[in-house]
């Protein structure tokens, strides 16, 4: 799952330099020989359709493993871990350890995922699983989510190895095979496979932090250090039912509709944490004296100012950032057109603020809808609340230095909270802080095509991302 920070900010910028150079036309700093290797690996990665249930993940894992092996990582430090994600989806994860000859610190974990979201040939202009380069872009499913990150993190390591760089801590690479569906790989890696993955902190390559708007103004680089907890609940109503020619006064569908009306009107308590405080501080600076900017300043000054938080939440750019949000996403009810419903069920998807327990949200929802409606969490996925990771100064410094090398000081770096869930959450839940710090970027919103049609990434973004990760490895493990 790809971060959406850039899209959020795209329409919001009111300050910044006037029309600048098209960042896509700036030459990459990656040497031509490494450009060729990078391009070839990305091509091979995109042409493996590693969609769930297609059985392609072992091939994808082998492709990356082969790169590490060829660069000198011994087989004993390369583990392809097969597992089942969705029922019947035989997938695999890859774990690689680049050992430090003389480790002075706890290992550092680099995370990514090898699976991609389904893409249909008939929906796309070109075959999504045939690599293309066109108009300054690499195209294909996974070009931005996130085979570019897989390639950049791998290629940067290989490049450093070829230059004789010796890390002063082990660097562990973990690439999961079901981030887009179940997140089971990350669950296993953060628990059962912890002996292979244990680290001081994690750096997630899932989603570039930086973006430009259409006028090529830098929008900033948001490092996700926290994410909301994903939890689905089912609202269920029951009724004896009967023949529809003789309606009863009580009706399972009406009871459910009443509950949904209440849910629509309900607002959870606004909350601030380190990630959102950092984010809104930066946003308030960008917004200047706009109404939205003023509301942000009021709320930062007084976290109990609910009216200010409500004004922020109501802005389409800030939805979900001030509090827990729950929304009805699916309905089913009844069993025949001519029978009164014996049951009705709504699926309510919640994104819970970091640190809040899903069972407390359940209790709040139950109280909201009353005793006629049963509120139960989805038994197939019980969300584990994750604390916001404390933004480490060394990580912030390393990322800032790398980002500003390619984009200049106007590309500011700040923390954000992600409203979606990614593999990072499973590690955060187990006490390993994770930071989303990939160096890829795009033009917002045109290049925001993760999960969508004609997915693409700028050629320069791909190449510079190799150097971005090289700088980060050097800074944090050198």
């Amino acid at each position, binding site marked *: 799952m790809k971060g*959406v920070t850039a899209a959020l900010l795209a329409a919001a910028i009111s300050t910044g330099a006037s029309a600048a150079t098209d960042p896509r036309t700036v030459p990459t700093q990656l040497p031509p020989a490494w450009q060729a290797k990078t391009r070839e690996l990305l091509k091979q990665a995109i042409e493996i359709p590693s969609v769930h249930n297609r059985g392609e993940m072992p091939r994808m894992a082998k492709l990356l493993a082969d790169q590490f092996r060829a660069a000198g990582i011994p087989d004993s430090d390369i583990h392809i871990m097969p597992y089942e994600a969705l029922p019947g989806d035989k997938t695999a994860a890859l774990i690689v350890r680049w050992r430090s000859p003389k480790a002075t610190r706890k290992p550092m974990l680099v995370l990514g995922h090898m699976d991609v979201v389904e893409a249909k040939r008939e929906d796309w202009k070109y075959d999504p699983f045939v690599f293309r380069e066109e108009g300054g872009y690499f195209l294909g499913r996974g070009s931005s989510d996130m085979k570019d990150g897989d390639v950049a993190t791998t290629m940067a390591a290989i490049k450093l190895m070829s230059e004789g760089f010796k890390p002063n801590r082990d660097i562990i690479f973990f690439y999961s095979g079901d981030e887009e569906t179940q997140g089971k790989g990350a669950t296993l890696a953060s628990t059962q496979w912890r002996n292979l993955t244990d680290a001081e902190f994690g750096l997630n390559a899932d989603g570039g932090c930086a973006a430009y708007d259409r006028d090529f103004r830098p929008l900033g680089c948001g490092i996700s250090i926290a994410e909301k907890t*994903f939890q*689905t609940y089912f609202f269920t109503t029951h009724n004896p039912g009967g023949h529809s020619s003789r309606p009863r006064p009580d*009706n399972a569908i009406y009871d459910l509709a009443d509950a949904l009306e209440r849910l629509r009107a309900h607002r959870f308590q606004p909350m601030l944490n380190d990630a959102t405080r950092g984010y809104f501080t930066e946003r308030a600076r960008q917004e200047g004296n706009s109404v939205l900017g003023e509301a942000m300043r009021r709320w930062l000054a007084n976290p109990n100012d609910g009216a200010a938080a409500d004004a922020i939440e109501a802005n389409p750019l800030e939805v979900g950032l001030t509090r827990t949000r729950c929304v*009805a996403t699916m309905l089913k*009810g009844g069993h025949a057109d001519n029978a009164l419903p014996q049951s009705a069920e709504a699926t309510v998807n919640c994104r819970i603020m970091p640190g809040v327990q899903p069972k407390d949200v359940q209790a709040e929802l139950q109280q909201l809808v009353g005793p006629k409606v049963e509120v139960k969490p989805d038994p197939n996925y019980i969300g584990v609340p994750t604390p916001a990771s404390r933004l480490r100064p060394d990580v912030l410094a390393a990322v800032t230095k790398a980002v500003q090398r390619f984009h200049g000081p106007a590309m500011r770096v700040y923390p954000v909270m992600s409203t979606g869930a990614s593999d990072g959450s499973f590690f955060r839940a187990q006490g390993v802080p994770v930071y989303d710090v990939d160096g890829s970027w795009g033009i917002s919103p045109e290049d925001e095509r993760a999960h969508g049609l004609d997915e693409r990434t700028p050629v320069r973004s791909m190449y510079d991302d190799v150097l971005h990760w090289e700088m980060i490895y050097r800074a944090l493990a050198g």
Partner: protein
Amino acid sequence: MRHLLAATALAALASIAVASAPQLTSTQRDMAHAMFAHLINTPTVIGRHKVPEMAQYLADQFKAGGFPAEDVHVMPYHTGSATTGDDDTAALLVRWRAVGTPSAKPILLMGHMDVVEAKREDSTTDPFVMTERDGYYYGRGTIDMKDGITAITQAMINLRKAGFQPKRDIAVLFTGDEETNGIGAKKGAGEWLELLGHPEFGLNADGGGGGFNADKSPAGFTMQTAEKTFAGYTLTVRNRGGHSSKPRKDNAIYSLAHALDRIEAYRFTPMLNDTTRAYFEGRAKLEKGPLGDAMRRWLDNPNDGEAADFIEASESEVGLTRTRCVPTRLFAGHADNALPQLATAMINCRIFPGIEPNAVKAELEKIVADPTVVVTRNEDNVASLASPLRPDVTEAYTRAIRTLHPGMPIFPEMSTGASDARPFRVAGIPVYGVNGAWVQVPTDFRAHGKDERIPVQSLYDNVVHWQMMLRDLAGK
């Protein structure tokens, strides 16, 4: 679909002279018993492919009873829908031709051969093995409505054997999917109308009938002359959707929920017609207390909506004072982590006879009052009509009932459910539910339910009832 009498006591129609009741011979009783057992033991549930077998059995019985093969037709057809599943079913069409020039257009006798599902584990005895116990026949279809099929068939065979010669044609249509899709009845009122001889009116064994109270006092018989129109509507809301981590202000599910809340609060305008007026007049005469008072107030002043609301709220009268619409199914969304792009609700309406389903669609749109909630119709049914009370049918029915049950009150009935009668009424052929079976009320109201049963004597009385009806209506 069987709707037996739900009231406890009813008013009488005009007094009709009755004769003493004829009896079946023991041979005729044995024949009726054997046929009934054969039919009950044939599980004509949708999906079990048993209706063609039953139709062939009945066809063979008619032919053995002297009906010429060219006037007995087993018509196979397919039935199915998304909600009921599919089956290869069949109808039986029989024509008993008048001797000489017919005195009038044919009389159509109607029934259905299919039954609703019954599960062995839900029943005391195997529902598809007829069991005789304590004066009852038990089994699926004993009152809905293999009793009527047996009675009509046996009555025709007995009359023919006795030398009866109809003065007008008697046509028979037994359908094979009344409980599910009603395709047989549509064909009967359409492509098979020629084979049936364009009947003047229909007598449906899937309606009418009567009962006795537990203390053996007569509870009354009904004659079904009207039924509400079955019409399905779909409420559809579409939305751009998006990622569920970023809820939009507009949401297809919330818009739909709001529309449903408005439908919940809405009351259609109360209406009376000849059938329900006669029904409530009968009910009001015997109903003491606030319900009877409300009936009397409403009959005095059809604009007394409060009285009509009070009646409608009574469990025994639901659906009789107006059009009713109720949501029966919901579907929305495509993933738990995506905002819904589509939300739909099925609204099932039972429309007062004579009101056009398109008018109810317009009314639903007004109730919902949200242009983003689109109302569409699920089928193209037209308004069902009440059949005018024909003196000849009313008299024949009354005479037959009172011959068997002297002094029995009889009253007209509007069914809230749908039956095979609808397409015929729509095609201008009035249909009367005039079966002669009786049960003990309310303990024997088990159509579609558990341990369905009929008193043994009721089955034999029903054969006699149909013999009398046919002699009366086709004998002159």
